[in-house]
């Protein structure tokens, strides 16, 4: 009797236990992911498309880290956005398909073919500086079969000791036979405005009213992180003398650039190093009036991890000979010795320069420290320092900077983008 009862219980319980999952709603209360595919494991992540080879190593290694982990749609969509941003691709689509193993999926990122933008507008720089006023630069570009024709306008009172305003035009051929060679022709025509401090210090033959520049350059990718540019820069400027006189500053220009990245912006952190060395030599061979050699070296190391962003910059330069004012070095603007006024440091610009800066950004909150010196004679060399704080997000920056000195504290305020 007991055996029969047990058999009866088994007969009822066993089919219930072995029955397939019911095909109907199962109400549950939970706090897990809302996407049911979060339970699936990513078998592999693949990138499809012509420009996939151009993906940086940090991003490629980040992609590889997804294999073996649970499917996380928001994280993968953010990755698609980063691929799009890095490759400047018009579209990156994520396609998810069943993997070879059960409960596994393969994630394919499909990079859309870049549709050449026939017409493009760029606001390349925009800045308000409490001591130097407004600066702005914008371009319109027309692309025709890998040839880019650009036309722009600029008014900049920040970068040099003069305010230059005028037009810029350019032609660029991005592939000349090979991806490793680019050609560029730039033309600019400016009108100058001078600060009282500069006019008071300058000799009559130093100040010019207009400046026209033409600069053909070629860029060659030597090895992937190393790029060299070379060309010539023909400048003609009309002096502010009672008798109108035009001078030429024609220079051979050469720049060597290095850019390397490694790591990832996630837990590990992303490292980015950029360095360049450029030389501009004004020579009689090109019928230049001033003869000079201008050397400039820059380096920037950047480390990003989650919401933290640390940047350390270095800048050094030396001019031998007599260079025109637009070639001379300036400190005390929105990029260097922030907080100092460039006209207080050297209203004519200097022939020697050393500068270092540390910027730290946490969740958009920025603090920075700048130090540097400009001088013509070594006995005039005096190290200056400044501190500042503000906010920085997606190319926008708003900050207040204080020069470190005894006496009156006069902060400098600036706001803008891409400077």
């Amino acid at each position, binding site marked *: 009797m007991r055996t029969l009862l047990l058999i009866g219980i088994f007969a009822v319980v066993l089919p219930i236990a072995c029955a397939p*999952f*019911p*095909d*109907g*709603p*199962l*109400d*549950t*209360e*939970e*706090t897990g992911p*809302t*996407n*049911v*595919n979060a339970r*699936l494991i990513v078998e592999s992540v693949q990138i499809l498309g012509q420009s996939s080879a151009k993906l940086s190593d940090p991003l490629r290694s980040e992609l590889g880290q997804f294999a073996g982990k649970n*499917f996380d*749609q928001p994280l993968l*969509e953010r990755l698609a*956005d980063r691929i*799009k*941003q890095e490759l*400047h691709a018009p579209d990156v689509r*994520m*396609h*998810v*398909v*069943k993997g070879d193993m*059960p*409960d596994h*999926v393969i994630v394919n990122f499909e990079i859309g073919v870049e549709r050449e*933008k026939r*017409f*493009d*507008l*760029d*606001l*390349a*720089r*925009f800045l308000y500086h409490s001591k130097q006023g407004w600066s702005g630069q914008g371009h319109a570009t027309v692309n025709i079969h890998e040839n880019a024709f650009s036309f722009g306008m600029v008014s900049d009172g920040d970068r040099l000791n003069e305010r230059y305003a005028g037009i810029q035009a350019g032609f660029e051929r991005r592939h000349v036979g090979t991806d490793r060679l680019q050609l560029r022709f730039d033309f600019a025509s400016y009108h100058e405005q001078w600060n009282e401090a500069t006019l008071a210090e300058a000799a009559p033959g130093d100040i010019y009213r207009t400046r026209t520049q033409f600069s053909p350059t070629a860029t060659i990718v030597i090895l992937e992180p190393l790029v060299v540019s070379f060309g010539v820069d023909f400048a003609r400027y009309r002096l502010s003398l009672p008798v109108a006189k035009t001078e030429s500053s024609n220079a051979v220009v050469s720049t060597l650039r290095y850019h390397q990245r490694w790591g990832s912006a996630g837990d590990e952190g992303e490292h980015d190093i950029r360095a360049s060395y450029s030389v501009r030599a004004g020579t009689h061979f090109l019928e230049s009036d001033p003869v000079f050699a201008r050397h400039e070296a820059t380096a920037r190391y950047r480390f990003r991890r989650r919401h933290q962003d640390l940047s350390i910059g270095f800048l050094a330069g030396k001019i031998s000979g007599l260079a025109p004012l637009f070639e001379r070095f300036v400190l005390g603007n929105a990029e260097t010795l922030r907080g100092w006024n460039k006209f207080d440091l050297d209203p004519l610009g200097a022939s020697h320069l050393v500068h270092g800066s540390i910027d730290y950004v946490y969740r958009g909150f920025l603090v920075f420290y700048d130090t540097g010196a400009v001088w013509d004679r070594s006995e005039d060399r005096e190290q200056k320092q400044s501190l500042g704080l503000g906010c920085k997000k*997606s*190319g*926008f920056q708003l900050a207040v900077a204080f020069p470190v000195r005894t006496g009156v504290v006069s902060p400098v305020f600036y706001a803008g*983008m*891409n400077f």
Partner: protein
Amino acid sequence: MRMRTIKPWWVIAAFLSGLAFAMWAEELVLSTQEGHLEFAAPRVHFLVGKPLERLRNASEVPFVFKITLWSGTRTHILREVPARFVVSYDLWEEKFSVTKLVTPRRTARHLTDNAAEAWCLQEMSQDVTGISANEPLWARLEIRAEDTKESGLPFGRGNITDSGINLTSLIEIFSRPAATTQPHWTIETGPVTLDELRRGRRRG
């Protein structure tokens, strides 16, 4: 002068096509159960088209539902109840999962497409205790699929590059039609009284 007459078969054809249209038109079906007003829309399918395409690509798709009830007159809104559901589609089981974003969350899994749609509507049922049995009621159901990727911010990611703000991208964003591209459905019914519903009369 000869008078033109409407032939009888035209009348029959018009009547039949009207009837067919009425039969196949999207309808909101109301019923009452234990003091709750329940909704059904057997001819409305929102797990179709673009949303379904995204679901079959392992993405989750949020849907916003809104029930509007009028009582007495069509101008007196008795209640407006929005709710948010997130639907996903299991690539291996080939079944839908729906989560209602309330506290605490409610989830239904292993559903067919029709069952997933019905579950959402079932979750929209309304307590109608206190409403007079003879009071005329009107109801409207609105369903809208949301795109999680489009933030709608003018300075969204990708518009600011190393070379500054790309004005062309901004112009493209502002030229894009906003909500009209989102898949959406609206169905209404009424007037109907709770008495009529209890007697089993259905209105479409």
